[in-house]
C-alpha cells in the first residue's frame, strides 16, 4: 500500500485520539469507581439500577417504619404489663379485704391503694411515643384515658378511666404491598369493647366497695378481675405476635435492602481490579501509539537529501 505523509499524520491524530479517549475513560472509571455513568454505558443495567435503587430505598423505608411500629408496640406492651400487675395486686386486695376479719379502716386503706393502682394504670395507658398516644387508636392527639378524680366522699368518680380514643387499628407495611396490624386496641384490652370486661370500671368498683366498707361487693369483683387478667394477657399476646412479625419484617427488609444495594453495586460499580488493569492497559497503548508516531515522523527523505 502506498503510504503518504498525510496518512501518517492523520493516523497519528486518529489513533492518538482514540488511545487518549480510552485512557480518559479508563481513568474516569478507575477514579470514580462507576461503571454505568450514562445510560448508554449499559442500557439494560441503567434501567435495572434505578429499579434496584428504588427497591433498596423502599425496603429501607419499610424496615424503618416497621422498626418504629415495633417500638410503639413495645411501649404499649409495657403499659399493658402495668395493667396486668395492677389487676394482680387488686385481686390480692379483693381476696384479702373481702374477708370479715378486716376493719373498715383497713378497707379504706385498701381503697386508697386501689385508687393508686387506678392512677398508675391510667398514667401507663396514656403512654406517648413520638408525641403520640399509642393506645388511643388513631385518635392519638389526646390522652385516651381520663385521669383519676374523687368525689366529696372519697369515692372514685365513674368518669375516671373513660376512653376517648377510637377503635381503629393502625397498620404498617411489612413488605411491599403487604400490611400488618401495628397497634393494640386499648378499648378492647382494657375497656372490654366487644363483650369483654371493663378493667378500669372493675378497679373503680373495687375501690369504691372498699371505701364503702362493703366486703361482699369487693369480693364480687374477683370474677371480673380474673377475666380482666386473661383479657389483658390476650391483648399482650396479640401485641407480642405483631411485634415479632414487625421485628421479623425489619430483619427481612434489611436483608432484602442489602441484597438490592448489592445488586446496584454489581450493576453500577466498576470492578476495582478490572478498572486498574484497564487503566494500565490504556496507558500502555497510548505510550506505544505516541512512540510509534514519533518514530514514523523521523523517517523522511527530507533529512537525507
Amino acid at each position: 500500500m502506498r503510504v503518504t505523509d498525510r496518512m501518517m499524520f492523520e493516523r497519528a491524530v486518529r489513533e492518538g485520539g482514540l488511545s487518549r479517549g480510552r485512557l480518559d475513560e479508563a481513568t474516569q472509571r478507575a477514579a470514580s469507581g462507576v461503571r454505568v455513568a450514562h445510560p448508554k454505558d449499559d442500557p439494560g443495567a441503567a434501567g435495572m439500577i434505578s429499579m434496584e435503587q428504588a427497591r433498596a430505598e423502599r425496603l429501607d423505608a419499610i424496615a424503618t417504619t416497621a422498626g418504629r411500629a415495633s417500638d410503639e408496640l413495645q411501649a404499649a406492651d409495657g403499659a399493658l404489663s402495668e395493667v396486668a400487675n395492677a389487676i394482680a395486686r387488686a385481686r390480692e386486695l379483693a381476696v384479702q379485704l373481702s374477708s370479715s376479719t378486716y376493719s373498715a379502716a383497713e378497707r379504706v386503706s385498701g381503697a386508697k391503694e386501689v385508687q393508686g393502682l387506678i392512677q398508675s394504670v391510667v398514667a401507663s395507658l396514656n403512654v406517648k411515643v413520638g408525641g403520640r398516644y399509642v393506645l388511643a387508636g388513631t385518635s392519638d392527639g389526646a390522652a385516651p384515658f381520663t385521669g383519676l378524680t374523687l368525689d366529696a366522699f372519697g369515692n372514685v368518680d365513674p368518669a375516671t378511666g373513660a376512653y376517648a380514643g377510637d377503635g381503629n387499628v393502625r397498620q404498617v407495611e411489612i413488605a411491599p404491598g403487604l400490611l400488618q396490624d401495628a397497634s393494640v386496641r386499648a378499648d378492647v384490652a382494657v375497656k372490654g369493647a366487644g363483650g369483654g370486661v371493663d378493667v378500669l370500671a372493675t378497679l373503680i368498683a373495687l375501690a369504691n366497695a372498699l371505701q364503702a366498707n362493703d366486703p361482699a361487693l369487693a369480693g364480687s369483683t374477683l370474677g371480673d378481675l380474673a377475666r380482666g387478667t386473661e383479657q389483658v394477657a390476650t391483648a399482650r399476646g396479640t401485641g407480642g405476635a405483631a411485634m415479632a412479625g414487625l421485628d421479623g419484617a425489619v430483619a427481612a427488609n434489611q436483608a432484602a435492602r442489602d441484597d438490592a444495594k448489592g445488586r446496584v453495586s454489581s450493576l453500577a460499580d466498576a470492578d476495582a481490579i478490572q478498572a486498574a488493569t484497564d487503566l494500565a492497559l490504556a496507558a500502555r497503548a497510548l505510550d506505544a501509539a505516541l512512540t510509534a508516531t514519533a518514530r514514523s515522523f523521523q523517517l523522511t527523505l527530507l533529512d537525507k537529501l
Partner: protein
Amino acid sequence: MTDLLRILTSGAASLAAQTAATATASHNLENAATPGYARQRVALEATLPAERVGNAYIGRGAILGTVTQARDRFLEAQLPAAYGQAARSSAGAETLEAVHALDPETPGGLGDALSGFYSALRQLSQNGSDPGLRQAAVGAARSLALAFNRTRQGLEDARTGVDAKVAGSVSEVNELARSVASLNRDIRAARAGGSGEPNDLLDARQKAVDRLAELTGASPVPTSEGDVSLFLPGGAALVTSMTASSLAAAADPANGGHLALQLSVGGAAVSAAPGGQLGGLLDARDGALREAVNGIDQLAYDLAGAVNAAHGAGVDLDGNPGLALFDPVGAAGGAAARIAVNGSISANARLLAAASAGGGAGDARNALALIATETQALSGGLDATGALAQVTSAFGASASRLAAAAEMDAALRGNLESMRESYSGVSIDEELIEMQKAQRAYQAITKVIQTSSEMFDTLLQLK
C-alpha cells in the same frame, strides 16, 4: 547548421517540460496537507513528428503532454455516502451522550425523588398526625415535581440545542450548494477552453461535495456535461447542474416549535429530510430525545393522576376531603413540565390527606393507599419505577446503538479515506524524487545546449 539550431530549439522546449514537471511536484508538495487534494502527475511526451534525415528519424526532444490527477473513481463514489452515514451516526451519538438528565446514579435525579417521595409517605404512614412527617412528605412531593420539571427541562434543552446546531449548519449547506453550482459553471467553462482538465477546480468541487455529503447526506450524481448534481435522501435536488436550491429552517408548531427543514426549489418550498450531520441531529432530537420526553411526560401524567385519585379519597388532618396533591397537569403532553404540588397543601401540610374518612387524627390508612400507587400499574402496564427504568433503558439503548454505529461508520469512513489518500495523496518522498528527476534532466538538457553551442562556435570559426 539547421540541425544544430533544431537541437537548441528542442532543448529549450525540453527545459520547459522539465520546469513544468518541477512546478507540478512543487504544487503537490505545497498541497501535501490540503484536504481533498489529489496529487497531479506530469506526462512528458516525445515531440512529434520526428525529423526525417536521410533514411532515419531523429527525435525532437520532449514536451509537456498532460497534467493529470490521481483519482480512483470507484473509491470516490463510495466516499460521500460514507461521509454522510458517519456524520449522521456521530452527530446522533454525540447529542445523546451529552444528555445527563437520565443518568442512573445522579443524586437528586428523578429516580431518587420518586423513591424519596414514597419513603416520606412510608414514614408518614407510621405516624399520620406528626407535623414534621407531614411537612417532610409535602417536601418530598415538591422534590418529586421539581425532579420531573428538571429532567424534562434537561431533555428539552438538549432538543433546543439541536435546533441551534441545525440553524447554524443550514447557512453552511446553502453556501456550499451555491459553491458547487458555481464550480460546475467554472469547470464547464474551463473545459470548453480546451486547456485540459481544470484539476484544482475539480478538487475544490470534490471538497464541497464531500462536505455537503457530510452535512446533509446528499448523493452526488455526475451529469453527461461533466457537472455534479446533488440529491438529498428522498430525492429532493439540492444542486442541479448550475442551480442551487436553498435549505431553510422554520419553527414547526406540530413539533413543539422545534425547527423543521424545507427546501426552496424555484420558489416552492418542499419538506426536506436530510441525512448526514443534520439528519443525525434531527434523528436524536425527534427520536430518542422526544421518546424520553414523552415517556417522562406520560409518567408524570399517570403518576399525578394516580396519586391525586388516592389523595382525594382521603381526609386531611381536619377531616376535610383531600384536595388534589398535584395541580391538574392537563394533557399528558408537557405534564412533566407542568407538574407542581398544590399550593394550598404546599403552604399547609395539615391539608395532606393521610387519613381515611372516619379515622382519627393519627389515622394513616390513606397514606398507605398513597404508598400503593408506587406499585400500581400505570398506562403502560408498568409501575412508576418500572416506567422510569423503561424510559432510561430505551434512551440508553438508542445512545449505545448510535455510539456503536458511529464507531463502525467512522472506521468505514477512515478506511475509505485512507484508501483514497493512498491513491490520491501526496507523498513528500515521492515528490522529492520527482523533483530530483526533473532537476537531473534539466541539468542534462542544459549540457546538451552547451555542447550544441560549442559546436556552433566551432562551425563559425571555420575560415
